[in-house]
């Protein structure tokens, strides 16, 4: 038997009688522990306003993820009636759950976040999905990831994972392989395409650019109920992820999984459709799109302003990568020098090797430790026979009859970057050095291509679109921007975060709300003190299995092979669970609650378990003045009210299977 709730959104007046009755009955103090919460949603421009509420107690799920992640096994689902109950004595008792010391932060237990989550630009519930992986609950883990992540496969492979940099397991030995664990679930949970989402908003949004910024905005906007059309000038979806990041790191079919998922939700992506940045924008607005998002990326490669930079045999990195990806035949020399120290540079170098260049070198300004490229990337590059030369500046491309013959470099010291990213340094005297090469690849950054951009959209001195950092709106009302076109070249996850913020502001704009929001208090991961138990046993990080070097050189096969299940589980078990409250983070509805008290222990709706014996219903049900709530066995409720688990402006999780029947609010 399964007991559950019924909720009629049409009857709920938003009065909170349920919530207060619940607090009174269970003697829960005022404060953050709210067993019954009411979500408020206000939609539509004045005067066409629409209001809905959603009663969110605990839904006593068929698959209670809260129970799965609890380290102390304090949460159980009762056989006899399906009520998910908490043994508060056990909570945080058998095993620690949360080891952040309160000092330095004024945050309550439930508000504390792990350093990894804080440093993740999209704020993924990392410890929760890792805990689910540790318990073998991969499907549930993927759902937690998808809550905030539109491109889980991408960010399971090529993310710059600032989270791992902050992961405190490094104070024991090494950080947890957060990114690879994400990649593991995306590879190992069979893809199930979601249903199309209902369009509940009157407006549609046009997104120009199908890179991570555009797709992230599309994902959030369609989940808010907007119609979304993504216009992509190229033949493929995904921006740089598809057109530039090499196959050996991010195979196309992997990316396609994520894109298929997004399209299944109802996002309309139109490839080979360039939007003219002048008149074209007006056309879109006239066609009736409520808002536009420019997520055009930064696609124009740059070269150093030195003599010989435009000789035959000099290339820019992005164009090269794009040409490789689009299958153009590439003619590279034998001896290649890549100028630059970032991921693009390493990608160019490793691709050059795969295309047959024998001697591939990378020369960059930064010293080895400061190279922006991923460490593992550099390591793998070296394995592949690529030489890395650091702290060098290039001053001249030598030629012979118009053909590149070498590059002159000098050693530098005192390297610094100004706020616009422009370097300054001193050349060390008498350190001239000539690389003997026939091909030079510049990988020194990209700028947006804003050809034809309408004059009323302002640009910055950096050549990016100027948008208000507090609203993401450009100088023209209703046109927003996000991603690399606004910030210059960043990374996939930064572009995703940027797209999500843009979606947030676009929603406010379309709702006729004030765009700006109060600045949120942010906490730096550096300020988080984690008390790692002194006796924590060392357990080295799982090494990502890779292709052998010879296998790699035969083409563009993906180098990383991914964890197998046992490796993933072992790796997941390394998580220190710094912040705790895993149940709350894993629950799609944040139903687990914590009071403002010393050693807060989980509490939540218990479906008034002790009232049923008396033939009564839960107190919230009996308190609701307009009878919007009911409770009973799920079979009874479905008989009485129909089998609908759909609510206006509220997304139920299919994975956990909540025990609730609802009547969605009608417009």
């Amino acid at each position: 038997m399964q007991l559950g709730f019924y909720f009629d959104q049409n009857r709920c007046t938003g009065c909170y009688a349920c919530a207060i009755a619940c607090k009174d009955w269970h003697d829960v103090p005022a404060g953050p522990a709210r067993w019954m919460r009411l979500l408020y949603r206000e939609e539509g421009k004045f005067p066409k306003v629409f209001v809905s509420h959603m009663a969110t107690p605990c839904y006593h799920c068929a698959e209670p993820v809260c129970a799965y992640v609890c380290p102390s096994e304090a949460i159980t689902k009762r056989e006899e009636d399906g009520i998910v109950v908490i043994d508060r004595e056990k909570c945080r008792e058998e095993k620690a759950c949360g080891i952040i010391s309160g000092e330095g932060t004024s945050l309550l237990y439930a508000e504390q976040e792990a350093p990894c989550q804080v440093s993740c630009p999209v704020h993924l519930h990392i410890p929760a999905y890792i805990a689910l992986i540790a318990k073998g609950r991969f499907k549930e883990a993927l759902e937690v990831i998808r809550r905030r992540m539109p491109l889980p496969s991408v960010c399971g492979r090529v993310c710059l994972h600032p989270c791992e940099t902050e992961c405190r397991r490094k104070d024991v030995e090494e950080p947890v392989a957060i990114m690879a664990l994400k990649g593991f679930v995306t590879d190992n949970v069979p893809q199930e395409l979601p249903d199309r989402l209902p369009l509940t908003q009157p407006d549609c949004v046009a997104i120009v650019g199908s890179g991570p910024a555009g797709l992230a905005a599309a994902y959030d906007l369609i989940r808010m109920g907007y119609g979304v059309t993504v216009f992509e000038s190229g033949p493929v979806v995904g921006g740089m992820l598809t057109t530039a990041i090499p196959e050996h790191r991010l195979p196309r079919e992997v990316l396609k999984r994520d894109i298929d998922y997004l399209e299944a939700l109802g996002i309309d992506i139109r490839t080979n459709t360039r939007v003219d940045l002048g008149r074209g924008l007006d056309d879109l607005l006239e066609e009736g799109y409520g808002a536009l998002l420019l997520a055009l990326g930064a696609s124009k490669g740059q070269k150093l302003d030195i003599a010989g930079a435009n000789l035959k045999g000099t290339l820019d990195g992005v164009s090269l990568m794009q040409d490789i990806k689009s299958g153009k035949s590439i003619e590279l020399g034998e001896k290649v020098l890549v100028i630059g120290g970032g991921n693009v540079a390493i990608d160019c170098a490793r691709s050059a090797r795969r295309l047959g260049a024998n001697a591939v070198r990378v020369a960059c300004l930064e010293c080895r430790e400061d190279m922006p490229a991923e460490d593992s990337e550099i390591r793998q590059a070296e394995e592949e026979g690529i030489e890395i030369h650091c702290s060098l500046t290039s001053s001249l491309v030598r030629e012979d009859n118009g053909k590149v013959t070498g590059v002159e470099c000098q050693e530098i010291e005192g390297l610094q970057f100004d706020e616009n990213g422009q370097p300054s340094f001193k050349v060390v005297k008498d350190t001239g050095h000539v690389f003997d090469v026939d091909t030079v690849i510049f990988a020194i950054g990209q700028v947006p291509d804003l050809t034809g951009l309408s004059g009323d959209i302002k640009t910055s001195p950096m050549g990016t679109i100027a948008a208000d950092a507090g609203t993401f709106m450009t100088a023209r009302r209703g046109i927003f921007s996000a991603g690399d076109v606004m910030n210059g070249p960043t990374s996939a996850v930064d572009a995703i975060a940027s797209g999500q913020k843009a979606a947030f502001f676009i929603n406010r704009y379309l709702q006729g709300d004030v765009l700006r929001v109060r600045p949120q208090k942010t906490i730096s991961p550096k300020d988080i003190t984690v008390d790692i138990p002194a006796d924590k046993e060392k357990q080295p990080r799982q090494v990502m299995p890779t292709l052998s070097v010879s296998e790699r050189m035969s083409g563009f096969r993906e180098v990383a092979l991914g964890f197998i299940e046992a490796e993933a589980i072992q790796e997941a078990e390394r998580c220190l669970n710094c912040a705790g409250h895993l149940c709350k983070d894993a629950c799609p509805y944040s139903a687990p609650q914590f009071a403002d008290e010393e050693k807060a222990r989980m509490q939540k709706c218990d479906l008034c378990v002790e009232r049923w014996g008396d033939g009564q219903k839960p107190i919230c049900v009996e308190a609701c003045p307009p009878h919007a709530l009911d409770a009973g066995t799920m079979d009874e409720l479905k008989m009485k009210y129909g089998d609908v688990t759909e609510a206006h402006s509220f997304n139920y999780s299919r994975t956990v299977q909540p025990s609730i029947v609802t009547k969605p609010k009608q417009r």
Partner: protein
Amino acid sequence: MSPEERSQTNDEQIVLCTSAFDCGGRCPLRVHVKDGVITRIEGDDYSDEDKQLRACWRGRAYRHWIYHPDRLLYPLKRTGERGTGQFERITWDEAMDTIVSELKRIKETYGNGAIFLGGGGHLGALHTRGALNKALSMFGGYTSSYGNISSEGAVWAVQASYGDVMVGHSREDMLNSRLIIMWGWDPVRMISGTDAIGNLIKAKEAGIPIISIGPRYEDSAATLAAEWIPIIPGTDAAMMVAVAYVIIKENLQDQAFLDKYTVGFDKFEEYVTGIEDGAEKTPAWAEAISGVPAETIIDLARRYATNKPACLMDCQGPARAAFGEQYNRCAIALTAMTGNIGKPGGSACGGLMGIPYGHMFRSSGIPGMRNPTEVGGPSIRGTLDLNLRLVRRIHTNRIWDGILKGKAGGYPADVKMAWFAGGNILNQRGNINKGVQALKSLEFIVAQDLFLTPTARYADIVLPVKSFVEKNDLTRPWPSGPYLCFSNQAIEPMGECKTDWEIGCLLAEKLGYEDFDNKTEDEWLRTFVSENPEYQRFIKNYDEFKQEGIQRLQFDEPYIAFKAQIEDPENNPFNTPSGKIEIFSQRLADLNSLLTPPVPKYIIAEREDRNHPLAKKYPLQLLSPHPRVRVHSTLQNVDWLVEVDPHVMWINPADAEPRGICDGDEVYVFNDRGKIAIKAWVTRRIVPGVVSIYEGAWYEPDEEGIDRGGCVNVLTDDTYSPGGAAALKTVLVETAKV
């Protein structure tokens, strides 16, 4: 299990109680008591679930009010400056001795008129200020205020039109309507009878279209209405007049009804069509005033006039404004024009909504005595002339002015001391800063309350009062039943608290009035039940009534106001001079004032609204609706309530954006009368150009005089309309980010 059976388990007792607040409802509560302490509160468990009188959110939180750490438990005397809240505990003897000696001194020095008695609070039969009134009357009398701060406009309008205040229908009668118009009525927030919301939900689910008209998209509108018509505050009468215009022009009025039951429709018609003053009150005319598009007005008029029966529900809030009574008068004219009076599914309008069963106006009470200071004043029975009512009394929204100006200012007395028997008057009348001055000017102040309210902070002696669970009393629904309640004592009194009745008796004893009151609480309550005709009719057994805590009154059909007058007019005239519904009132014509015209009008005269010159400086109109999570200022600081509905100012994005105000920002709201600090809630649920702050938050001035508590009455004015309504919603302010 029955409540009695359940009360046996766990040595827990279940006591049947109700609150006695002016809260808009009256819900039977089942209070769980264990070892003398309330552990939980449950609501009505009547077997017919559908007819349960379910407590609202406030009722659910009473435990944290009853046991609030700030409850006053002992008498206090002031030790610091007035308003600073410095007090020390004293005995009842010392408190009462001080009061008696001050009363005597003031009486001897200035006469009885110098004693002002005001109050509010407990709405029961016995434990009210009745005994105090009587004791002070025996002492030679006192000055009091005239008028009800909430409903004076509506009362005046129904008196003028019907000569009767019982203008409601049973709530279930709304199910007989074909169209329901909630015009300035938000029952979800202000309850309007515990059974209102349930019946409205049923009406909606039965497919009866519901329209909401008001400056805010209220919770009722959001839940029930298919359509919201936003309107600029204070302009309802203009829109109503234009609705009448459309009905007249399209000849949709129920002429037979008008001819048979009303007087003076022709005069109203002359005003509406412009024959009287040359100005046609067209929808376009009203659009310019109210902001409601002319087409919307036309559409509404047609729908209202052609869907019969239709239930137009006006209320009291929009009448709490300059010329507010005209809103209720106009509504009555409309329901008369459409022939909806006295009929099932119709409505009589007039905003008061009561039916004559269990009505709170018909509560019992200890027999009083005429206040000697009022003897010899003009006869005010049934008068519509406010001036007559203010000969011996001070208008309730003018108390501070009356205290400050006294007889020289045209008020009936020079007040030197005030006794506030509950009521938190400082907080709950217009223009608090004037109130502070007035209170500081007095020689002696007594306050009795459960908490050290902003008013009590100015008192010299503060007397602690019991809450409803600490006494037995007869209570009545707001505004009426059909049911009657008995609220049982659930716990021993807290500290040394007494009830208002006990305080009155104690005063009489100290004043040496022997045999002032020889009855016990139980004797009084039995007497009330046996002597009041309504209890006589419905309560067969006192003890059973007390045990059950409620007597539901069952009728075969819903009560319909004026049904008798409509069905049999010959034998049942209306209680007006003409015996008919007075669209035109000769009594008003006799007053001969443009501001109290004989027919309902939208009065064109200066008022503090967006057309006032002051709007240049203070461009926003301010509303001060009843709070959702308080009963006016009662239940302030009940943590369970505050957390679900924090005190905020509603502001439209169109007003917030240019002022740089984000949702959640701390703002100042100010005008020439004062300045408050509050958080902004940016919402599309309010008309641009209007901000809204719920009344009742406690006034908490800082050193600079800025009210940090966000009490809206720092900003409102202490004026009243010609009909006597406190004009608390005719206010201009500006707001800025802190």
